[in-house]
């Protein structure tokens, strides 16, 4: 499968303002929940992280881990360069589409995602790619915003998605169902804010 250029170009454009839009309020708000999820990174294993973005999440990674980080956008990876270099451990960043990853099967012990599957165009296919590269018994840990099942938020998010997805993420994804549809076994779902921001833990 070739790289999705429409998605790549959209996030290349977003790279210019991503730090401004997400680096302050959203990071302050979500920092504690993100640190809790990234604290599960195990230094002994091989870790895949997506999507890297401009590397805002790197400061929340525990030191000393072996992490490969990917992002579909070359501009994002370029902007993340200094943060990647400053990580006290082994962290490498690559431009790669989750739908077309060139990692071999069962090559990671853990996979972490941060606000990723609101934006991957074919979420179940993307999650199946993660399933492929994860070792049997390996862990998937996700910090994601999703659609809501609570009215009127469910309606509002459906109405806003056509607009929001032109510039950034979709707002009405059922990521928990998508994780299960990709073959993972859910071990925990934790609502961080309403049912629209959550952490999802699953195993292969």
């Amino acid at each position, binding site marked *: 499968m070739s790289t999705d250029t429409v998605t790549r170009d959209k996030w290349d454009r977003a790279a210019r303002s991503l730090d401004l839009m997400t680096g302050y309020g959203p990071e302050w708000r979500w920092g504690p929940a993100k640190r809790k999820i990234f604290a599960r990174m195990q230094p002994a294993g091989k870790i895949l992280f997506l999507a890297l973005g401009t590397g805002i999440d790197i400061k929340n990674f525990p030191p000393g881990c072996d992490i490969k980080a990917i992002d579909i956008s070359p501009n994002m990876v370029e902007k993340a360069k200094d943060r990647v270099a400053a990580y006290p451990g082994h962290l490498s960043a690559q431009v790669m589409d989750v739908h077309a990853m060139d990692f071999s099967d069962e090559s990671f012990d853990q996979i972490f995602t941060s606000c990723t599957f609101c934006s991957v165009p074919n979420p179940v296919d993307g999650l199946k790619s993660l399933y492929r590269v994860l070792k049997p018994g390996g862990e998937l840990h996700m910090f994601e915003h999703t659609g809501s099942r609570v009215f009127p938020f469910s309606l509002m998010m459906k109405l806003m998605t056509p607009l929001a997805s032109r510039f950034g993420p979709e707002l009405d994804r059922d990521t928990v169902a998508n994780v299960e549809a990709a073959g993972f076994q859910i071990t925990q779902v*934790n609502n961080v804010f309403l049912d629209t921001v959550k952490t999802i833990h699953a195993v292969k």
Partner: protein
Amino acid sequence: METRWYFIAGDLAANILVATTAVALSTWLIGGAWGMVPGMLAGMVIGMALALFPFFGLLSIALGVMEVMTPCMLSGMIGGMIGGMLDLTGAGIWTWGSGTGVTVLALVYALNATISGPQRTGS
């Protein structure tokens, strides 16, 4: 459940600002002149649009994404509906706007306290 004062005060100010502006704008544009139901529907659209442009972009930088978007859109929507149905003056606009913002935020915080936390363990 949010316990940090920066965010509690910020959420409160944001919702009052969006709701009051929505009441004011739809009062100015419609102000009960279209009848109850058309005024309410038009006001709802005005309020939702207002919550998105220009407020969401600015408020989200300081306060977060979903935590701003969900209550503020609801505050804008309800504020717009009120302004579309009623012909209000200055004090009325402020009272209905601030009341809407505070009430919506209180309901969202209460709902969040109910449904946040672990939901599922195991498949």
